[in-house]
């Protein structure tokens, strides 16, 4: 239900403008529907909070603010249902409220028994809410047993009598089936969730409405608005449109000096606006993490394990749609960790470990990706077992298995139909888990890695792009039009000069191949793929091979030309065009031209490129080989007439930017890219040289220096060449900072000498921007 609304944070100043009423002045005119929907969203949020508080309460019984929060959630539901006329919901909430009232006033202590029943109450309330959401009615089932249990617990003596002599974390026996049932129903939810996604509550909360104040101490709720996701999507679209219009204005304004000033300002505002709208779509991962304590609690009880859950980096933010997409993989990963990872307390004690297992969920941002890790300190995965299982299930041949190293064997766990669990439990072990994790992660352009040590534990790492809406892509040409190729799948580019074409591309029957560092790379010609009937002369022009790696399928896509890489906004295609199956969308390029986005994975499948299990090995070999070669390779650059060398191993990418994009901060040139600030080093005076010509562009070589990135401004990139060491006469060690490149003595740019930007970068920048305005 709350799926479709994003809670976004606004500065306090914005509250006044939005109005303070809970339903708005014309709330009475709202159709009943709308009111119910609002109520459902709100109750859902309240119950989520209640769930969090309950699991926390178990750790710290008697924590008053927690009790107050739980009471508030149930009380709000009771109050609103009375008004809406949901009698069953009201009765149940009322029964719960009575018990919670006693707890809040300190007349009862929160025993595990009470918490278990309160969790049942929570599930009961949720069940009714779900029913209202789907059918519009609250159903006829009786809650009498639950209400009776809630009432029974209100009598302290009865409670004490029912309490086991020594307080144990395990729930009373009669609750067990209920819990088990709940787990099953959660499982069903999990499986049916795509279907749930498909029923959009598009109309929910059209426009915006302030969240009702929930008393003091809840000021975060007061300064936030609920906004429909479709509205945000539309805003994103319009911002994209604005970016295009801006580009056209920039081109048209070049002649007039005053217009140039204005259009530059437009440029800045547009960039900031785009950033802000994207920001509005971000939500903290705590929205997904907060479901975990309850799940871990229930599962660990069911499995008879003791687990401590640690959540880390909950404030890390991720695009709303991606957050939804990682929910299932993460749930699977946690289930797996609990079921297969963490051992029983006795077993742990026997190994000399803390009987209480540790499960850690961690999220952090790393550049344009968010990393989510699920770490357990359980038994780890025995590689031999994985191998034997894979062979037994016929997923891999014995000979093949013998050739794989430990890391590669571990990745077999992601193959469909794999499960190492000795027995199939109700929690997991049907052999779908890890496969689902990988498929779901790859669907959103993410990656999954697995690290495991026998006896020490397992870490599952999800790498997810920050946003789906905007992706970096390389623009390629073919059939006289532009296509966008997502850079996620691109590993390198090879240029084939016209005179080399016949020699470089070899054929076995009708299969074209290219020798890339001694290995044969199957080729796919973009033109032949897209225009199968037409034959075009192959020779006589430049060709480029984009070496792609799509889900383990490695091949080269032959295109006619390359243009600059661009950050593209992905637009969906109509059904008729989706069916072609080779395009993942369309986009509008910076020059206003449209381009289709190619889907590297689908092209590989269509072209019959096999998924090579040794693909990883090949890639590893290739990169290792590359690393060896690169040590002595340099990028030869020219800055204002001087030649210099940049160690190729440190080069991340090369960008051509217009001089206007170079800004100054603390007296130093910087480049903003993807929300990050890149310090620019200008050793040869390339910036000054470029400034003398109007509308000039400068080439920025983005390099890695330790953990940070720095940009080197140059006029041109000349070549890549192997350098040889030079020795000063009489010295035995090679002279530092200099190399012999193409028979000329060339300076090596010293990356470590580039000073970092002043520390409080963001604040200072903010001030600088404000001062400038």
């Amino acid at each position, binding site marked *: 239900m709350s799926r479709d609304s994003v809670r976004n944070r606004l500065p306090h100043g914005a509250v006044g403008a939005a109005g303070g009423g809970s339903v708005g002045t014309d709330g009475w005119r709202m159709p009943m529907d709308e009111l119910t929907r609002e109520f459902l969203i709100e109750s859902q949020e309240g119950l989520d909070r209640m769930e969090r508080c309950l699991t926390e309460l178990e750790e710290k019984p008697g924590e008053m603010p927690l009790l107050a929060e739980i009471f508030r959630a149930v009380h709000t539901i009771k109050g609103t249902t009375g008004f809406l006329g949901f009698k069953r919901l009201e009765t149940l909430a009322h029964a719960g409220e009575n018990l919670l009232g006693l707890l809040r006033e300190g007349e009862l202590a929160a025993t595990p028994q009470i918490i278990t029943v309160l969790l049942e109450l929570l599930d009961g309330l949720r069940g009714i809410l779900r029913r209202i959401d789907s059918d519009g009615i609250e159903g006829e089932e009786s809650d009498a047993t639950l209400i009776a249990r809630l009432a029974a617990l209100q009598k302290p003596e009865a409670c004490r009598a029912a309490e086991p002599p020594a307080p144990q974390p395990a729930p009373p026996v009669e609750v067990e089936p209920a819990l088990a049932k709940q787990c099953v129903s959660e499982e069903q939810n999990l499986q049916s969730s795509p279907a749930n996604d498909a029923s959009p509550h598009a109309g929910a909360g059209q426009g915006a409405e302030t969240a009702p104040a929930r008393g003091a101490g809840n000021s975060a709720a007061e300064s936030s608005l609920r906004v429909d996701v479709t509205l945000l999507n539309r805003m994103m*679209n*319009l911002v*994209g*449109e604005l970016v295009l219009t801006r580009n056209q204005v920039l081109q048209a304004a070049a002649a007039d000096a005053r217009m140039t000033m204005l259009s530059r300002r437009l440029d800045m505002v547009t960039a900031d606006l785009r950033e802000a709208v994207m920001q509005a779509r971000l939500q903290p991962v705590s929205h997904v993490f907060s479901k975990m304590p309850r799940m871990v609690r229930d599962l660990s009880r069911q499995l008879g394990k003791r687990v401590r859950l640690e959540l880390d980096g909950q404030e890390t933010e991720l695009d709303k749609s991606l957050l939804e997409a990682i929910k299932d993989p993460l749930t699977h990963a946690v289930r797996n960790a609990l079921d297969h990872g963490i051992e029983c307390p006795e077993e742990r004690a026997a190994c000399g470990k803390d009987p209480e297992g540790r499960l850690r969920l961690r999220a952090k941002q790393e550049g344009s990706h968010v990393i989510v890790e699920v770490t357990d300190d359980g038994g780890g995965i025995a590689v031999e077992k994985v191998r034997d299982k894979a062979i037994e299930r016929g997923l891999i041949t014995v000979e093949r298995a013998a050739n794989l190293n430990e890391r590669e064997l571990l990745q077999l766990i992601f193959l469909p139909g794999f499960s190492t669990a000795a027995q199939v439990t109700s929690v997991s072990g049907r052999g779908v888990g890890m496969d689902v994790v990988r498929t779901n992660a790859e669907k959103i352009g993410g990656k999954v890695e697995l690290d495991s040590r026998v006896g020490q534990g397992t870490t599952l790492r999800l790498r997810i792009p920050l946003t789906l809406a905007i992706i970096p892509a390389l623009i390629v040409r073919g*059939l006289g*039009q532009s296509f966008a190729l997502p850079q996620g799948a691109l590993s390198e580019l090879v240029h084939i000069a016209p005179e080399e074409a016949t020699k470089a591309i070899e054929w*076995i*029957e*009708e*299969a074209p191949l290219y020798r890339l560092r001694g290995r044969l790379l*199957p080729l796919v010609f973009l033109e032949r*793929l*897209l*225009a*199968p009937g037409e034959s075009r002369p192959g020779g006589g022009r430049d060709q480029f091979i984009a070496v792609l790696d799509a889900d383990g399928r490695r091949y080269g896509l032959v295109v006619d030309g390359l243009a600059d890489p661009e950050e593209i906004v992905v*637009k*969906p*295609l*109509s*059904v*008729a*065009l989706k*069916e*072609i*199956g*080779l*395009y993942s*969308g*369309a*986009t*509008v390029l910076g020059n*206003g*031209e*449209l*381009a*289709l986005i190619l889907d590297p994975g689908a092209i590989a499948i*269509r*072209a*019959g*490129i*096999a998924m090579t299990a040794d693909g990883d090995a090949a890639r590893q070999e290739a990169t290792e080989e590359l690393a060896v070669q690169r040590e002595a390779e340099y990028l030869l650059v020219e800055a204002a007439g001087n030649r210099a060398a940049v160690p190729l191993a440190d080069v991340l990418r090369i960008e051509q930017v217009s001089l206007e994009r170079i800004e100054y901060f603390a007296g130093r040139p910087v480049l903003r890219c993807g929300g990050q600030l890149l310090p620019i080093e200008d050793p040869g005076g390339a910036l000054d040289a470029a400034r003398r010509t109007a509308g000039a562009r400068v080439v920025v070589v983005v390099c890695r220096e330790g953990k940070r990135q720095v940009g080197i401004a140059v006029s041109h990139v000349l070549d890549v060449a192997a350098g040889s060491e030079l020795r000063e006469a009489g010295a035995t060690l090679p002279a530092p900072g200099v190399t012999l490149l193409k028979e000329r003595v060339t300076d090596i740019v010293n990356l470590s000498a580039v000073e970092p930007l002043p520390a409080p970068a963001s604040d200072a920048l903010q001030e600088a921007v404000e001062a400038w305005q």
Partner: protein
Amino acid sequence: MSAAIVARAKGQKPAKEPVAGGGTEAEVCVVRLGHSRFGLPIHSILEIVGSTCPLPVPLAPEYVGGLVHYRGDVLTTVSLRRVLGLGASDAPQAILVLEGAGGCFGLQVDALQEVLQPTAADYEPNPATLDSRRRRFFAGTYKLRDGLLVMLDPGQLDPLRLRPAQGMVESLSRTTSRSTGKDSDKRGER
């Protein structure tokens, strides 16, 4: 002229009921295709995008004209020429934005001519002798002084409706995969 149409078209929401019912005096937008003229009920038109060259989509179904950029979205266009079996034209085409079941789509015509208000009395349903393949796109005709104006049924031009049956799509992908699949087989032989 087209500005006037836009102004008139914008104010109205596309109605669901067929226009050519005979009783109402609907406004009709006249489009040109080669030498023929066709009419479209004006309230079915959301907006008119000036003449552009849509981006061709390789391997797209026959009826697809291409893609155009429209208010931050990418629209699939239906080429009226191809739908009616006329040869393709290289000249820039006018795009009418219509609303279909699966969202907006563009209708590509050679040019826009005028807006008429023909009287209902001049309306006649499709003659029975019409070519059956084209007939589904036509919604009757108006007898004008200077000739007949054939009305188009915008609902039938929806790309979702034009989509061939699933079998055809499959056979298409089979042929392409067969031709490339052969390559991989041969690679396997070595």
